[in-house]
């Protein structure tokens, strides 16, 4: 395949098609809507299932129903829509069925606005519904990376029988960039041994999230936690930019990771050794790798389009005695590289002064 110019949302949709998604259910919400619009034609032409639901609540439960039958299914939304999906995500997690969700974050809280934001880091990594569960959360910084992560997300969802969230700010959903599409996969006809497909020739299968006995519910929770542990051991992803010898290590994900790269390059031109550590998996957070890298750096600057949410994971990774600074903008404001560079330069001046 050649590199082509793709709009982020449409590229993510096409990546899902190529990964063999059988069904898509969604509800229009800016800045994610093009993903739904794209699939409304593409899926129908391929003879696959597309349905515009009456709400995000309905969409996630349609997804839940399909997931119970063991075929590839996904939905997508943006921040307020994800809030509505939290109920379903909790049931899906407890039922251990594979689901892929794309979240194109916008400014909040409340109705907020339709500008890009990273204010839902807590929502996707911490509070994606009631109860003890952690979805696998992947955050692309480019359209190409988004394509690759969506393509892989279905495999991961099935491998762990879990929710995989590909989360990006509205910037990545809306912008156009060159991207190369992965090959078209055949739709799997394999039926997992837990799928609800009719009890022909056997006794019935049940998929439920109800366990009235405390001990049985604890057993489920222990299994979910063991899964979280396997995910922590196997699915850590991150990228670095000029981090090997950086005194000031910026930590940012998605769009902020890219802005931080530009700021790092600006700093290098001024003789400041700055670098970037960009978590790609937000859960599992690359704590060990960041902690190792922090030994060689002298300061960490966390950059986010939020009040500082990933900041907590960084502090947990490097410990309370490590000097961690923060620069962020909220409400859908995208920081300019100059602003981030200024924050780097300020830290550099303090370091020289120390």
């Amino acid at each position, binding site marked *: 395949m050649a590199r082509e110019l793709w709009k982020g949302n449409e590229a993510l949709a096409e990546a899902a098609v190529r990964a063999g998604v059988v069904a898509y259910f969604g509800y229009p919400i800016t800045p994610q809507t093009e993903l739904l619009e794209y699939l409304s034609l593409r899926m129908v032409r391929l003879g696959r299932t597309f349905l515009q639901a*009456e709400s995000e609540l309905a969409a996630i439960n349609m997804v839940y129903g399909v997931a119970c039958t063991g075929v590839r299914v996904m939905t997508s939304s943006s921040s307020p829509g994800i809030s509505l999906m939290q109920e379903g995500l909790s049931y899906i997690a407890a039922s251990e069925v594979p689901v892929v969700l794309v979240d194109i974050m916008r400014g909040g809280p409340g109705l907020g606005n339709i500008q890009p934001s990273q204010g839902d880091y807590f929502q996707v990594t911490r509070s994606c519904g009631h109860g003890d569960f952690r979805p696998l959360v992947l955050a692309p910084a480019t359209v190409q990376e988004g394509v690759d992560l969506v393509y892989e997300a279905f495999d991961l969802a099935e491998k762990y029988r879990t929710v995989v969230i590909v989360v990006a700010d509205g910037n990545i959903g809306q912008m156009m960039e060159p991207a190369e599409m992965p090959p078209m996969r055949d739709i799997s006809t394999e039926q997992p041994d837990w799928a609800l497909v009719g009890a022909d020739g056997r006794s019935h299968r049940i998929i439920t999230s109800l366990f009235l006995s405390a001990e049985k519910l604890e057993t489920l929770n222990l299994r979910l936690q063991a899964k979280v542990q396997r995910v922590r051991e196997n699915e850590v992803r991150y990228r670095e930019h000029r981090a090997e010898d950086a005194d000031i290590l910026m930590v940012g994900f998605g769009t902020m990771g890219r802005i931080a790269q530009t700021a790092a390059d600006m700093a290098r031109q001024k003789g400041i050794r700055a670098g970037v550590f960009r978590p790609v998996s937000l859960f599992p957070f690359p704590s060990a790798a960041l902690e190792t890298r922090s030994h060689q750096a002298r300061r960490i600057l966390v950059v986010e389009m939020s009040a500082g949410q990933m900041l907590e994971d960084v502090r947990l990774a490097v410990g309370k005695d490590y000097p961690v600074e923060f620069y962020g903008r909220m409400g859908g404001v995208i920081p300019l590289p100059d602003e981030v560079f200024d924050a780097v330069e300020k830290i550099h001046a303090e370091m020289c002064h120390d």
Partner: protein
Amino acid sequence: MTEVTEELVYQRPESLTQVHTHYCPGCTHGTAHRLVGEVLDELNVRGRTIGIAPVGCSVLAYYYFDVDFAEAAHGRAPAMATGMKRTHPDKVIFTYQGDGDLAAIGTGEIVHAAGRGENITVIFINNAIYGMTGGQMAPTTLEDQKTSSSPLGRDVSIAGYPLRMCELLATLDGAAYISRQSLHDVRHIRRAKKAILTAFKTQMAGLGFSMVELLSTCSTNWKMDPVESLEWLRDNMIPYFPLGDFKVAEAVKEL
């Protein structure tokens, strides 16, 4: 010696499991389960049926039907059923929902499933009360009916009026077969079974959305004995929730 010839006239449907249910004495859920089980047997579709249980007293229905079953979030069964049927049109998909599930928290899902003409079957149990949580007011609780959250009786100036879901859904073009039946005596139970059979046949013929509402009792929370409950249903519920077919699409009439 005379040869003894016996004919089997009654047995547990294959679509039901061999277990005791948790339902209260006098509850009509058992009757409703049995009717659905008999219909699935008669249509010979047990092996390709997927059921969806609600949140409410019948939350454990999946233990009682020997068909593949999923447990929905409260009110969301029609959305799950939509997903399953859209991707598996060859399967027989049904939801089993109570009045709180279908007519309160799940109103959006049931209206839109019917509006889209989803080719699914809904078994709607209306007993005018929330059973599992201990007898609170339901969307179908009658005017002046006392419940644990309407202790003075349902005051329609505060709580509004009971919803008639069959009448409401029958206005939608996607609905192919909508019927309200009652489980309070044998004659009505036989009619209820016929309606359930028609509903599943509607789905199997691909004619669109089908729902059978079954007026049911809740002796425990109505605080009546089982016989009193059946009489109360007959004397109080049927006048407000009239029985009969509310929508029979032309193609359904020909089934």
